[in-house]
């Protein structure tokens, strides 16, 4: 039999390829438009930058069966309450510093990056910083001079990336804001720092 069946012919599959690609792209574009609205800063899932003026907890949601951020009463970062513009400027500088220092090639952020150092998604809430009232200063001090504070018995250390105090404070602001993003329960089973009620 010389005649190729329709389902095995090049022309059928060429058309199939074009249609499948087109439909998938259109679906992706619509989903993206919806998602981008839902993850804009100030949305329910990704809070406004002024969230750094508040206490942030990570609590288990019985209905979703995952942990989710809970925004609490005012608890300004470094004791300074920032307006929307100032808060955005601080987080912006923090994020720029995170990129400029190439943090993502050792750490993961939202689980993406390298695996040589701990995930930073909920770093703000990690018990390792000790008490909640010392955390901000601990984080800044660590970033300014991390080389002799290994946090582990492996001998793995963070190099001194020569951050200025302003940059270290901005990174702290960025990390606090990031911890308030609803990540559908990632990282799983996170043990949050104890914060006094």
């Amino acid at each position, binding site marked *: 039999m010389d005649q190729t069946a329709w389902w095995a012919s*090049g022309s059928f*599959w060429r058309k*199939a*390829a074009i249609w499948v*690609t087109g439909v*998938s792209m259109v679906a*992706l574009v619509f*989903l*993206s438009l919806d*998602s981008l609205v839902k*993850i804009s*800063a100030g949305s329910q*899932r*990704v809070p406004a930058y002024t969230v750094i003026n508040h206490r942030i907890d990570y609590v288990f949601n019985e209905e979703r069966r995952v942990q989710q951020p809970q925004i609490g009463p005012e608890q300004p970062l470094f004791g300074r309450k920032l307006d929307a513009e100032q808060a955005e400027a601080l987080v912006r*500088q*923090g994020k*720029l*510093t995170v*990129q*400029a*220092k*190439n*943090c*993502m*090639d*050792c750490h*993961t*952020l*939202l*689980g*993406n*990056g*390298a*695996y*040589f150092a*701990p995930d930073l998604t909920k*770093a703000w809430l990690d*018990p390792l910083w000790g008490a909640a009232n010392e955390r901000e200063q601990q984080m800044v001090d660590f970033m300014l001079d991390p*080389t002799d504070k290994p*946090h*582990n*018995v492996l*001998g*793995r250390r963070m*190099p*001194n*990336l020569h951050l200025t105090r302003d*940059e270290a404070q*901005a990174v702290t602001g960025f990390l606090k804001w*990031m911890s308030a*993003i*609803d990540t*559908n*329960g*990632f*990282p*799983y*089973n*996170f*043990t949050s720092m104890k914060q006094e009620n």
Partner: protein
Amino acid sequence: MAALGEISLSNLNGGQKLALKYYALAGVLFAAQLLFGLIAGLQYLMPDLLFGVLDFSINRMVHINALVVWLLCGFIGSVYWLLEEEAQHPVVGLKLGNLVFWAFASVVAVVVLVYLLVQTGSGEAATIWLITEGREYIEAPRWADIAIVASVLVFFYNVAATFTKGRFTGIAGVLVLDLIALFGLYLAGMFYTTNISVDQFWWWWVIHLWVEATWEVLVGAILAYGLMKTLGARREIVETWLYVEVALMFGSGILGLGHHYFWIGTPEYWLSIGGFFSALEPIPLVAMTVHAVYDSGTHRMRNTNHPAFAWIIAAAFGNFLGAGVWGFMHTLPQINLFTHGTQWTASHGHLAFFGAFATVNIAFFYLAMQKLRGDVWMGGALPDHGWKWKWSFGLLNIGMLGMTVALLVAGYVQSHLERAIGGSSWSAYFEAQGHPWFQQGIWWREVFGVLMVAGFGLLVWDLLTAGRREARVIESLSPA
């Protein structure tokens, strides 16, 4: 006319001469990838190694950037390699193409030097423009992004215009449309935003829609040509398979993007969409393997270039295993919640990049060397039983499989101890990192990495010497 078995550029057409330059650059960057990978791997075991001089972040950045660029160089080279034969027309802007190659190579050299010597900058926009963008895989500073875009535009013009002026085959159609998508997507990674969820949303458009969609289709088109060259497979058959693969690849891969949107702040509906479509992603890879095996069978494995053909078969299976099986293993959100951002990802990444892409480039290096020596014999009964290509093939593949399994073991330990049991805190992270099983995995990764380096050395030696003093011409294939 050079004698058979001697290296002579006169054996190549214009596009192929240009391809050779891209292949050479690819080879250098492949070596850099291995070197910096070895150092980064050693730093897991010896944290003080080069501490404060060449830190892990820098080595890892060079390791993965060299990977991306050497694979791209290989692809660009392979497209130039097949362009004139496929279009039956000389490359339209060859001079410009050559000029752009040198510009591209210079940009790469400057970027790497800045990575190594300047390393990081202060937290301001200038750093992102001049030193590093600090976003995994696309760390290149913005000035280099713009230079890369300009370079690829010239490349795209050369491809599209040459096919348009010459013969526009099915392979040509897929290549041209795919390249538009591939290079267009790069633009999605060229902006700064403070909102990290939005940042990673678009970042994945570049990374995922490259490696799990447009790159896969690109190597599909390149392999279609490779199968015609090595096996004498019929155009009608390889082109139909190519369309099948495009339909399945884009049908699963475009919305499969959703598996990167599980945990970055994006809505919960991505858990279902991403889980479903990424579960389908292995299907085109099965089709590719079936295609390669089927074609080989119909030709009774008779082929014109044994090393190249072996690497093509390695590509079919490597793609299926590395991208398909290893990807599927942790793609459903129910398991990805535990494995995301652990050594599982490293395990999958290593085998997928190597199996799907590196193998195809190596196959084309062999096709290039065969033609460069005047279409010499590279079939069976090679001098010394072809031990060099066989050993390098074995060492590279076993090295990669070994690394993959070793990293997977480390990944099991990490996801279990750190995530499932430990509470995902920093102390749980370090607890898992220090566990003897994790450490064993990391040790074995390094050992198999050394095997790969040995395989690479042999590969280079073989590529430079295969076919030397060969008196037989390339085997002629009767059509199946």
